[in-house]
């Protein structure tokens, strides 16, 4: 394969040439990190070793800035929270027991910067990467979700990024046969040039099928299979193209990875057949840091040794140097450990699926990861020093100087805050304006580009509060998932903001009827080298860890994305929280809207409303972000969740929707538009009980609330339950299937306001298409 002429920097050569200068700084390493590598090895690293350390010790792979904070997710887990936890943080994805011998694994991950550079491929390979994490746990992927954030909807670059990202998420996920069951989208100027593409995947398996990434069993074979290795994703590392330290080599390397969903689909089926036949001992997907990551993690998680021959890697580009091969992020590749007895059966399965593979070497008991190039050793390291003993930083952090001023700048003190709409016609106009703003408008231009039916197990998907997927067709056992973030609230107070995101995802899962079980988080922040940003991060993690402990659900995995900023402008702190819940039977899931046959059902508002407009969508509509976020009461969230779950289980309620962005107004509109079934409500009792004016009652974003609809025959039983649990509730009105209108009455000067659902839908559904295509 190699007609290339480059002198290979072997371990022997490195030992004899201690003074050769390596481009460690261009690879992103700091001087002290480079010194540490020399200390670990007792000599200078070879070019290939330097490649490995540089990618594995990067922020992305080593979590060096975030590690000291992320520890809380483990430290704050109680024994009780571990009851259903089969695999916690640290593996490719966490695993939760679902009962009946089923287990579920899920994880959310970012692919932010690549999606800005090349929206379609960046988003597509983001989906591909998270799905491979799920496969490598031994699970069959069953659904995906996406949390997307873009700049202002009318910014020209959003026209470029939004359609590309959506087509990429859809193009990859649809081609894998994975239903997309929900997610979220937000438009805000802070994401201009820093869009966020966070993808979640969920998979299921029988308990006995659980696989871990470790290379155990001395003498077992190491195999690389799937796509061939090319120059993808090593653009930033092109300095190593001159590994021979002359300039004769081409150095044109693409920094964008290109996805091949067809290959990944085949890889999924092939892997599941391998798992079914018990043909692999350990398995690891190749994502960031490619072979460097896979070999060092498999080796260090196993018995500590591995010996591979790098020239056996099948290449798409024969000009790649050893260092580039080690760093390549070519997609759709997996590495596995196979016993010698299973080699033949393994090869038969790969041949059936037409998947290419090459045997690279074997597991050893040396405690060393040794990589050869044509028989000459170019890497000889303790794999733990590469995979786990990277640098750990205690980054300085401090509360931003501007935080006090921001928190003091309450919406109530602004012109718009002092002049809230009061008359029925003003309120009606304000509600229509709010729900047709980009962040509350109909997202179906996005979600209709995703297949939500494939698999035949989707019981709920966008726009309902959670995505719900059946796992076991014989019993109806299944899972509900929601991903949420409230970055504007996190900007006002990162600790509370992170808890609000957690509370919202928890509430959404419970609203659909599932029992919340586990958390996966994707923490998107600016530069950790900026102490105020680091403070935001530290506070958000602390808030999330405390919140999880109080709710009794563990963080099972996730991802950190830092440096989401352009120049000095960082994104709002954006902790995206995914909560997974369990259903004994998905048949009892609660939809988020009034159905046609529910005419005359009673509508109840659960929870209490405070004057909490700071950071709300209503404040955003008026160009304001300041003050304090809504208060969080996680005990109240638990009570509310228990009520919603029990009401679903006992068949008391027929619709439920959480109150979050846009408050009561948005929830009423969304419940009415869901199936085009109207309702009539009166705000008097709410305004009186909670001491609110009608506008605040409609637009406040107080947490811990939900709307439910139930048959009159269930009212007594339902009221008994909420009274027993001490959950405040008010009967707001009734479902009106005939009117085609949402009518809101209250203590207004001019009667009630009425919104025609057809007219509202027309404006509501036109917002995103008009900007994405117009």
């Amino acid at each position, binding site marked *: 394969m190699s007609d290339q002429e480059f002198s290979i920097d072997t371990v022997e050569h490195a030992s004899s040439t201690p003074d050769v200068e390596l481009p460690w700084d261009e690879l992103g390493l700091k001087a002290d990190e480079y010194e540490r590598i020399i200390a670990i090895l007792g000599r200078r690293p070879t070019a290939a070793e330097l490649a490995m350390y540089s990618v594995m010790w990067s922020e992305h792979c080593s979590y060096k800035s975030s590690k000291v904070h992320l520890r809380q997710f483990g430290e704050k887990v109680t024994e009780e929270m571990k009851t259903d936890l089969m695999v916690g943080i640290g593996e490719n994805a966490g695993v939760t027991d679902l009962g009946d011998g089923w287990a579920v694994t899920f994880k959310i991950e970012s692919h932010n910067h690549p999606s800005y550079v090349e929206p379609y491929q960046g988003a597509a390979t983001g989906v591909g990467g998270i799905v491979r994490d799920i496969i490598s746990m031994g699970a069959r992927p069953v659904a995906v979700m996406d949390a997307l954030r873009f700049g202002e909807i009318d910014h020209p670059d959003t026209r470029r990024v939004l359609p590309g990202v959506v087509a990429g998420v859809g193009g990859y996920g649809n081609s894998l*046969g994975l239903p997309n069951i929900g997610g979220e989208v937000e438009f805000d100027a802070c994401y201009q040039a820093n869009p966020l593409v966070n993808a979640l995947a969920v998979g299921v398996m029988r308990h006995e099928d659980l696989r871990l990434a470790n290379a155990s069993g001395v003498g077992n074979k190491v195999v690389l299979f799937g796509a061939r290795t090319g120059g993808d994703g090593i653009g930033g590392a092109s300095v190593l193209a001159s590994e021979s330290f002359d300039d004769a080599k081409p150095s044109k390397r693409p920094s964008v990875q290109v996805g091949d969903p*067809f290959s990944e689909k085949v890889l999924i089926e092939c892997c599941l057949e391998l798992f079914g036949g018990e043909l692999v001992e350990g398995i690891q997907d190749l994502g960031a840091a490619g072979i460097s990551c896979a070999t060092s993690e498999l080796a260090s998680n196993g018995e500590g040794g591995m010996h591979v021959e790098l020239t056996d890697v099948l290449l798409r580009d024969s000009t790649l140097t050893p260092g580039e091969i080690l760093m390549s992020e070519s997609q759709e590749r997996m590495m596995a450990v196979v016993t010698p007895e299973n080699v033949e059966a393994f090869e038969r399965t790969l041949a059936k699926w037409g998947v290419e593979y090459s045997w690279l070497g074997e597991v050893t008991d040396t405690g060393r990861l040794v990589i050869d190039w044509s028989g000459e050793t170019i890497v000889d390291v303790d794999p733990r020093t590469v995979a786990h003993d990277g640098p750990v930083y205690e980054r300085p952090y401090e509360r931003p100087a501007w935080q006090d001023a921001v928190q003091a700048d309450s919406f109530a003190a602004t012109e718009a805050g002092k002049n809230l709409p009061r008359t029925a016609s003003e309120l009606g106009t304000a509600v229509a304006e709010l729900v047709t703003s980009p962040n509350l408008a109909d997202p179906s231009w996005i979600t209709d580009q995703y*297949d939500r*039916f494939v*698999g035949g197990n989707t019981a709920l998907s966008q726009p309902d509060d959670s995505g719900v997927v059946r796992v076991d067709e*014989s019993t109806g056992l299944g899972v509900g998932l929601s991903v949420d973030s409230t970055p504007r609230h996190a900007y006002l107070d990162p600790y509370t903001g992170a808890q609000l995101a957690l509370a919202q995802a928890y509430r959404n899962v419970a609203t659909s009827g599932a029992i919340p079980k586990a958390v996966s988080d994707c923490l998107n922040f600016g530069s950790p080298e900026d102490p105020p940003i680091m403070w935001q991060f530290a506070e958000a993690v602390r808030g999330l860890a405390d919140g999880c402990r109080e709710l009794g659900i563990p963080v099972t995995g996730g991802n950190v994305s830092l440096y989401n900023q352009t120049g000095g402008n960082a994104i709002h702190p954006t902790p995206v929280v995914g909560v997974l819940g369990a259903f004994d039977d998905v048949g009892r899931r609660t939809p988020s809207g009034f159905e046609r046959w529910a005419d005359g059902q009673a509508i109840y508002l659960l929870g209490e409303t405070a004057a909490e407009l700071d950071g709300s969508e209503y404040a955003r509509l008026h160009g304001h972000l300041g003050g304090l976020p809504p208060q969080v009461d996680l005990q109240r969230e638990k009570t509310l969740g228990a009520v919603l779950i029990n009401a679903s289980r006992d068949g008391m309620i027929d619709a439920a929707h959480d109150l979050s962005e846009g408050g009561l107004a948005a929830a009423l509109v969304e419940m009415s538009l869901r199936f085009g079934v109207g309702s009539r409500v009166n705000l008097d009792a709410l305004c009186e009980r909670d001491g609110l004016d009608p506008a605040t009652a409609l637009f406040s974003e107080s947490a811990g609330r939900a709307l439910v609809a139930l048959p009159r025959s269930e009212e007594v039983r339902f009221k008994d339950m909420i009274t027993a649990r001490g959950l405040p509730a008010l009967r707001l009105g009734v479902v009106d299937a005939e009117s085609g209108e949402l009518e809101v009455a209250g203590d207004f000067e001019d009667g009630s306001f009425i919104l025609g659902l057809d007219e509202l839908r027309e404006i509501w559904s036109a917002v995103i298409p008009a900007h994405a295509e117009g």
Partner: protein
Amino acid sequence: MAQASETPLIGETDSASDGPALDGARIGVVTFPGTLDDRDAARAVRIAGGTAVPLWHADDALGDVDAVIVPGGFSYGDYLRAGAISRFAPLMRRIAESAAPSAGAGLPVLGICNGFQILTEAHLLPGSMIKNDHLKFRCGDQVLRVENTSTAWTAQFTDDELITVPLKNQDGQYVADAATLEQLEAEGRVAFRYVGTNPNGSRDDIAGVANAAGNVVGLMPHPEHAVEAGFGPDDATGMRAGTDGLPVFTSVISSLAGSTAGPDPAGGAA
């Protein structure tokens, strides 16, 4: 090597395989690399009362099946053209031989979405599919009119019955030359037509067509996603309650039962 019967249905989970099986209606479901809706098609067969038999594209024999479904997906990534590579699979040649009019009664074959595309590439059905006029993948509930109830796959619908089934594709725009379109209309071979807005620019709102003998039918929408209440499209009775796709599968099972019972005097009239 009898691989067809031993190969587990792609993605089948252990618990899902025990359906009510009626002997006598064995319906093959073909899996190509990149097929996605094979599990759904097999489930639809089971719910309709038949036995789903997994078929692997590389097999060179059909084995003991009474009908075949070519399900949806992105076989071979649709990288050349949708269905263009799958058409050359060994199993497709066998299917084409068995479905041809010269093969007597003609094996009932249903192509759904990518399966429809494969059947047109294989010249079992006329026309072809190009990219949607709006250029996007689109997923949603779609109303169709069943315009031919004399095929093996539509006999249990009533004439001009309106049904709602999911539609989801990127290359779903049906095209054919004027002469072909005229012939299809003249012979009543438009099996399904879009009602309401044309979702993709298809000629004459055509959603699905049949061959002259009525044993081969292809359509872009997905009846197999509308067979089980709770997991289908929305309908008047509630969210995801729609099961309008089920008669496609009961039609073929009953027509098979009819043909094994003896000659069909009604000649396929519904």
